[in-house]
């Protein structure tokens, strides 16, 4: 087996730590760095215990040795506001950036829909849209690959406990980026995204509703089949991705009701919204890693 591709995780919060635990199981990725900004953060301490190099000086703390440490892939699990700088710095040193923030400066990647195309494009920055996007865009695409979708709308309902400070501070970025992904990756002419945060205890499992308006009468059998097939694809990396109800057909409206339960690696199972992000990010990185191992892709420094 080829040597694993070394990776760094920027942001030792819930997402970064969950990603780390998943990455430690990967056949293709070896996490070697955890980058934070708060010296006594529990995420950095945990990463250190797990044998990673750590720094509390942000990306700048890793850059001097990043090349000799062999880091070729970085994950950014910080926030949309600092992402562009982080990306520029690691790209300059020739590492690919997998962006888990809603910054969306690189092309979108929703693995079951466009992972291969995204990797083939050899972009040095690829964006994972949003948690709501990862959970719903596959369903929009499942309908739009059957027939034209003039309008795609998603409602993501997440538990309060799983909505971190990043999402809360940037809630507009969530709705904008997700809506954009519904169009560009999901294939709807127009996209709309809604997020609802619910504080109920015990926390509710992530719920997603996908509404599509088709141009012509929906081909019910073909859509049912396409949705079932797409669910199987998502379940390959998020086993708790489940159809709750639907597809419901009402005139030209197609509605699909999903529930997303996480693996419970670091984040609780109800936080399927966070799990689907980290799982999708890792899956994307693994695909890049396989391309690098096979010699089909060599990440090169990007001039600033």
């Amino acid at each position, binding site marked *: 087996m080829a040597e694993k591709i070394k990776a760094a995780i920027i942001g030792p919060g819930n997402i970064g730590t969950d990603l780390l635990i998943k990455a430690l199981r990967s056949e293709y990725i070896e996490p070697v760095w955890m980058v934070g900004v708060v010296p006594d953060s529990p995420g950095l301490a945990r990463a250190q215990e797990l044998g990673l190099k750590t720094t509390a000086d942000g990306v700048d703390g890793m850059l001097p040795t990043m090349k000799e440490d062999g880091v070729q892939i970085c994950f950014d699990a910080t926030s949309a506001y600092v992402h562009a700088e982080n990306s520029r710095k690691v790209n300059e040193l020739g590492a690919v950036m997998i962006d888990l923030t809603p910054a969306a400066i690189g092309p979108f990647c929703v693995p079951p829909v466009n992972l291969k195309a995204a990797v083939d494009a050899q972009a040095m920055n690829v964006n994972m849209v949003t948690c709501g996007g990862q959970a719903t865009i596959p369903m929009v695409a499942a309908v739009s690959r059957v027939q034209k979708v003039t309008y795609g709308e998603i409602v993501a309902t997440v538990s309060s406990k799983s909505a971190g400070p990043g999402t809360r501070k940037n809630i*507009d970025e969530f709705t904008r980026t997700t809506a954009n992904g519904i169009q560009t990756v999901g294939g709807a002419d127009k996209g709309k995204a809604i997020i*609802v945060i619910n504080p109920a205890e015990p926390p509710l499992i992530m719920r997603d509703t996908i509404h599509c308006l088709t141009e012509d009468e929906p081909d019910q059998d073909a859509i049912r089949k396409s949705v079932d097939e797409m669910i199987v694809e998502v379940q390959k990396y998020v086993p708790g991705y489940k159809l709750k109800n639907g597809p419901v057909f009402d005139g030209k409206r197609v509605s699909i009701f999903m529930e997303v339960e996480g693996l419970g690696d670091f984040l609780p199972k109800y936080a399927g919204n966070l799990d689907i992000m980290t799982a999708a990010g890792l899956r994307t990185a693994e695909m890049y890693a396989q391309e690098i191992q096979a010699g089909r892709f060599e990440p090169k420094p990007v001039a600033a």
Partner: protein
Amino acid sequence: MDLKGKKVTLHDMCLRDGMHAKQHKISLDEMVAVAKGLDDAGMPMIEVTHGDGLGGASVNYGFPAHSDEEYLKAVCGAVKNAKISALLLPGIGTVDHLKMAVDCGVTTIRVATHCTEADVSEQHIQMAAEMGLDTVGFLMMAHMIEPEEILEQAKLMESYGANCIYCTDSAGFMLPDDVASRISLLRKELKPETELGFHAHHNLSLGVWNSLVAVENGANRIDGSVAGLGAGAGNTPLEVFTAVADRMGVQHGIDLYKIMDVAEEIVTPIMDQPIRIDRDALVLGYAGVYSSFLLFAQRASKKYGVSSRDILVELGRRRTVGGQEDMIEDLALDMAKEQGKL
């Protein structure tokens, strides 16, 4: 109760909360007629937006007859004295909508979150305050948490720049003591210059009384809607509140007979159904359910053959919050399956 000499600013909801009861299909002519009537009766503030706020146009909440922009432009251009407000729910609308509303002539922005989630409003409240708008933090479903918890959330909104905080009884569930304890604590602990508001739903027939209790405890802005046109059993009927306030010596600035005429001659004729405490509206108030779920539950009940009361009670039991309209069809499907109807 002695409210003599107290001053209140009334804020009419017909053209926003009333949009729920009209499935968001009020025509531009109707909007303009209602707004002109209210303006002429001395109503100081009128809210105009999709029922679910700016950007609410959707499959999930319903597509309106016209865009927020068309409604706002029409109304802002038609009134002489009334100030026009717009509602914004972060997660549905964005600061882009906010800027659009201001361009249309809106001078008050009310940023609404579930009562425990005030921190999602930071972007929007900050921007509205920076733009010099009358900026309101609107804490919905305020019956679901204790007064001390409401205060914590209100302080967040105040710290972002809100100059007024609302305690919003979205389910029409609160009893008078619930109103008193919340408003009085907010009055005691928030900055003295921060205004306080109360928004009721009339599901337990307490809209007028609870609003008076709110005034007694320090609220100076009262929401309601003429003829009660709003979600559930409607909002506090403002012509009734005005009559009561008048007799109690509250300063309200409204021409009572004119507002009665608006209720009778302009608003009531445009209703699709009587706004009253029917069985389902009563269940909203009794079970603590978001008032705009009413028509959705009734439609799901018809479509899937399950009881709308059962749907609403279960939504309450699951502690659903505003915006979760998609849960209603999902739940109705589950119930229909369980009952062997699907």
